[in-house]
Structure formats: structure tokens, C-alpha cells
């Protein structure tokens, strides 16, 4: 049974997966920094200002659980690899279309030198007006799968080493007061033959943790993932469904008493969904999952969209949710208690 956390949220809490488009001026400041024309302090101030701006944008759109938009992160694996000793970068590789990431290579024993995202969390907590904020951390399996391994004798050994590091980071976040951490594991189902040990390794990050832990898995084989819903020690699965036109919803029958973070807007399409489309999708998922166990989010991080489209998608998402909330309000259902 999931334990209640003494925090009240509106029914169908709305959240984001994590990333959000960087403001144009921030991109400019980063370019200036790279060219040596502004100093580190000015860059950090720009990041802080950008977080203030995008948190406000999320809250204005009606998001109940905002993130800091991952303003300080160029990329989800790269950011952690830059802060864990033992990685090296050879250059970018393409991920899809004309989108690249700086794929790291593990060239030495990995060492957790100091906290990675605590400062991010502390700043987000300070600027958000919401009772709960979300902190995202890339999971050990995905960091390993999206890196070249030149050092460890096996991928399994590498994942376990990373899991220890991520676990330390989550424990630090808990100590700092974080209430909701989402571990991003988009690669988790990529190698079905590795799932058994991968699930065990990913569970290592949850050891001794007493806050809400979600896991985000996207663009993946959910048939495979759903077989491990009960084995993964996370209370919430944030999954992408709009991109797949809400096919595969049947896998949610295997959720047990866990929650779904239901992806209702497609982050790889610039078409802005209508509130009615969002509401319709929620009605569909409510046929399978109890409404108390549904959170609403975009499919994935919004960062690759133009900022105005990302904002419009969040607004539409919240308007769609509000249609259903109104229907539920008439039935006397308005709040949930957050569970860990």
C-alpha cells in the first residue's frame, strides 16, 4: 500500500515531466558565456532568472506540481555525466531528426564527488508557490545505456555503480526537503533481455528513501514495462500516451495500486491539442485506473518545442483537466492526498 504524505492536491494533479524550452535570452547568455564574454556568476544569475520565469509560466498555466524546467541542463544524460567523475565527451551524436546530444563515454571508475541537483531543488523550492515541486534525475540504466562504456567489464556493473550514485543523490534531496523526485528511465525497456537485472539495479536508487518517487519511461515498449510495474519500487509511472494516439492503455490494468502520470499532449508535434481531446483521453484512462491514482502531464519534456507552443500545450492540458474536474466536482470528488 502506498503511504499518504499529508499533502492535499486537487484531483487529477497536473504536472510536467521536467524540461521546458529555454528562453531565447538565456540561450544568448549561454552563448556569451561559452565565448568568454560573461562570467560564471552572471550565467548563474541568468539561470536563476530563467527558472523564475518558467516556473511562473507553469504556475500561470495552472500546473499544480512544477519543475524548474531543467533550465541549467543541456541534456538529461550529459548533465549528470559532467558532474560524476569518470566520464569523457568525444562529441555529439544524433538522436532523431536533426537533434543531437553529447553522448558521454565512461573511461574511468565513477565517483560521486558532490551533490548534483540539490542547489537546483533549493532554488526551485524558493521560487515556487506550490506546496509540491518535482525534481527530475536521470536514472542509472539510462545514463549507462546512453553512454559508451570503455571502462567497466559489463553494462550491469556500470548500472549498479551509477545506481549507488543516484541513490546518494536522492537521499541528499530528501535531506534537503524534496517531496517528489522523478527518476527518468526512457531507456529501461530497450533491451528486454536485460530487464530482470535492470529493474533490480534501478530499484537500488530507492533504497532508504522515504519521499514520493516516480519513474518516467517514454517511447518504449509498455508491454514489457507493465510486466514489471509491481517489481519497480516507484509509486508513480509517468508514461507517454498522446504520441501513440492512446493505444496500449490496456497495459494500465497491471498498475495495481500504483499511480499513472498520464501523458496527454504530444511533445514532438507542434499541433496544439484541444481541451476536449485532453478531456476525452482522461475519460478513457479513467475507465481503467481509479481517478485518485491519475496525475496528468505532457508525454515528455517540453524543451524541444517553441516556448509559446509549450506554454499553449500546458494551458490546453489544464483546461482539459478542468473539464473533467468539473464533472467530478458534481460527484463530490475534488481532492486527493499525495502518496509516496
Amino acid at each position: 500500500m502506498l503511504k499518504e504524505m499529508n499533502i492535499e492536491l486537487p484531483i487529477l494533479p497536473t504536472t510536467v515531466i521536467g524540461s521546458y524550452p529555454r528562453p531565447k535570452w538565456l540561450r544568448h547568455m549561454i552563448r556569451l558565456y561559452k565565448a568568454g564574454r560573461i562570467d560564471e556568476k552572471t550565467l548563474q544569475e541568468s539561470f536563476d532568472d530563467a527558472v523564475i520565469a518558467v516556473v511562473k509560466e507553469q504556475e500561470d498555466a495552472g500546473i499544480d506540481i512544477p519543475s524548474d524546467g531543467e533550465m541549467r541542463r543541456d541534456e538529461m544524460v550529459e548533465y549528470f555525466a559532467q558532474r560524476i567523475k569518470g566520464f569523457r565527451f568525444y562529441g555529439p551524436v544524433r538522436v532523431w531528426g536533426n537533434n543531437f546530444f553529447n553522448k558521454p563515454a565512461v573511461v574511468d571508475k565513477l565517483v560521486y564527488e558532490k551533490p548534483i541537483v540539490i542547489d537546483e531543488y533549493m532554488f526551485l523550492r524558493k521560487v515556487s508557490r506550490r506546496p509540491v515541486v518535482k525534481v527530475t534525475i536521470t536514472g542509472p540504466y539510462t545514463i549507462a545505456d546512453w553512454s559508451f562504456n570503455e571502462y567497466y567489464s559489463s553494462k550491469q556493473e556500470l548500472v549498479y555503480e551509477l545506481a549507488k550514485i543516484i541513490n546518494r543523490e536522492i537521499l541528499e534531496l530528501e535531506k534537503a526537503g524534496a517531496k517528489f523526485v522523478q527518476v527518468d528511465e526512457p531507456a529501461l525497456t530497450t533491451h528486454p533481455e536485460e530487464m530482470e537485472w535492470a529493474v533490480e539495479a534501478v530499484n537500488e536508487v530507492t533504497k532508504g528513501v522515504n519521499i514520493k518517487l516516480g519513474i518516467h519511461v517514454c517511447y518504449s515498449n509498455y508491454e514489457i514495462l507493465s510486466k514489471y510495474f509491481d517489481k519497480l519500487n516507484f509509486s508513480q509511472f509517468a508514461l507517454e500516451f498522446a504520441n501513440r494516439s492512446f493505444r496500449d492503455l490496456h497495459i494500465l490494468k497491471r498498475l495495481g495500486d500504483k499511480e499513472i502520470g498520464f501523458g496527454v499532449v504530444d511533445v514532438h508535434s507542434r499541433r496544439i491539442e484541444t481541451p476536449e481531446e485532453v478531456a476525452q483521453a482522461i475519460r478513457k484512462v479513467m475507465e481503467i485506473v481509479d481517478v485518485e491514482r491519475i496525475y496528468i502531464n505532457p508525454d515528455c519534456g517540453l524543451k524541444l518545442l517553441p516556448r509559446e507552443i509549450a506554454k499553449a500545450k500546458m494551458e490546453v492540458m489544464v483546461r482539459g483537466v478542468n473539464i473533467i474536474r468539473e464533472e467530478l466536482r458534481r460527484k463530490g470528488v475534488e481532492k486527493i492526498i499525495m502518496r509516496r
Partner: protein
Amino acid sequence: MKIMSILYGSMPRSRRLARALSRYYSQKISLEALDEIYRKELKRYIDFTLTYNFFRISDGMFRWDDLFNPLAEYMKIPVNGLKRFYDNNFFFRQPVFKEKIRYETPVISEILTKDLKLIGSLDRINRISISLPGPATLVANSLIEGSSYTSTNDLARDYIEKVVLKEAENAYKQGFRHIDLHEPELASENVKADDYIDLYKRVSEYFRGFIWIPIYFGYNSRNIKILAEELRDTNIILIIDLATKNIDIEKLRNDLSKTKAVGVGLINSRNTKMEKIAYIREYVATLEKTLSNIEDLYLTHNTNLEFLPEKVAYKKIRLLSKFT
């Protein structure tokens, strides 16, 4: 046994090309300006690789976003959301066959011929391949909707007839002597190569040069064996992935016992760790001893080099060139 080195598939896009594409998508440069960059990229790649005397290379597939795009657009087929390309952190737009393929002109070979002409490399056309998805891989990674096709076999056949044969015919006429039909699907356990043998033979009838079938992201012994046997008297050569998994040399001998030529992917395109020359030499020596029936052995990488950062990809090409 004659030993040669070859390159195939997609290469990493340079920063220059990536930047040009971004600028094109945000309407800051024209299509003509983008084409110019594509051609510079192609020229750089061809000049570099052919200096090393590779038996054959590909065009680097710089114009391709993934194995199915822009081909889907040329076939007048819409694409779906993003889908993971096998077990990689690489995603493609999935073709959705709501209607039958309409492929009026052999666009792929036409564009490449034009590019080669404009960069003054037409004289090398016979060492450069045309790249296309193989039928097994196309159908496995597409969706069939409505009454467009009654089965995956129906789609595979239509794809071969309307696209591959048209491209093969035109390619040969233009001077190409190599066609690659990428078939990563045949490395998976989900598919039987038997279903596609007639289709490969059909392409073979149309194209008198070399037809290469790169099978990567693993090794399916059953499929390799049956293809090696059934296609032994054709101009079709399999390229197999020997870097993803350790393949027992006896198994390899058994699977390839009927074929006279094979491409072996020894260089790992999915890891930055550089292979040792001594290791390659030793492996090749073992292959020479074990695969006594093989007359032509082509050394290569195990999958597209674009899974590597550009500078590592070029380093691995230089490594492979030591065996040309």
C-alpha cells in the same frame, strides 16, 4: 581468400551540416544553400574514404533522417510519431501505409547521381552504394492501416516491385554497382528470413552489380545460415554483425559454410573504445583459417558509423583502412 575493407550506411552529420539544417528549418537559408552543404559533406566523405582505397563505400546517407525518411515522403506515405530504432537511443518516424505506395521516379538514385555529378565525383559512382531499407525491416517498422495492404508480405512485395526494382534499374543505368538493403530486422528473433528470399532474388535479377544485405544489432544464426545457403549463387552478399555479441567461431563456420563471400562487421560502431589492430589481425587470421570456403572476405563495421561521435567514426574508418 581475398580480404578487402568496405564502408556502408550512415555517417555522423558534421556540425556544419547540422547547423545548416537547423538554419534551413528556421527558414534562414534556402534549399539551394542547404543542398550545397549536403554536397560539400558528401565530397569531404568520399574524398577522405576513397583515399584509403576501400573496395566500396556508401554515400554516408547525409540526406537521411533515419532509414525510412525521406523515403516515406517520396513514397507518398505519411509518418507517425517517433519510435525507437531497435535497442538504440535513436528514434525514427514510423511510416504508416494507409494507401498503396506511389513511387513515380527513382528519387534516391537520381539525387545521388546529381550530387556526384555536381561535386565532380561521377567517376567514382561504381564504388558508391545506394542505401535502402530492406523489405523485412521496412514492414517490421511500419504500420499498415485500412485496406492498403492485406498483409506484411503484400507490403514487402509491393515495396520491392515499386521502389527497390525501380531504384535498382535506374542505379545500374547511372553507373552504380552497389546497392545496400539494410536489414537489422533479420538479426532479431521475430522474423524468418525465408519469407524474403524470393524478394532478394528478384532484386538480383534486376541489378547485375553487388547487392549487400547488412544485418546488424545482433546475430540470428538461423537467418544467416538460410540466407547464406539460398543466396549463394547470386550477386548478394551478407554483412554480418560480429561485434554486438561474441559469436562462436564454429557456429560461424557452420552458418557460412555454403557461401563464397561475406562482409564481417568487426569494428564496433556502438562503442567509442578503439579496437586493437592486433586483435583485428588475429580475428581475421582465425576467419581465414576457419572459413575456408570463403573467397572474398569484406572487413567492415558492425552497424552505421553514425552511432559514434564524428571524430571517433573517422578514427575507426582509419583503423579499418589498415586492412584495405
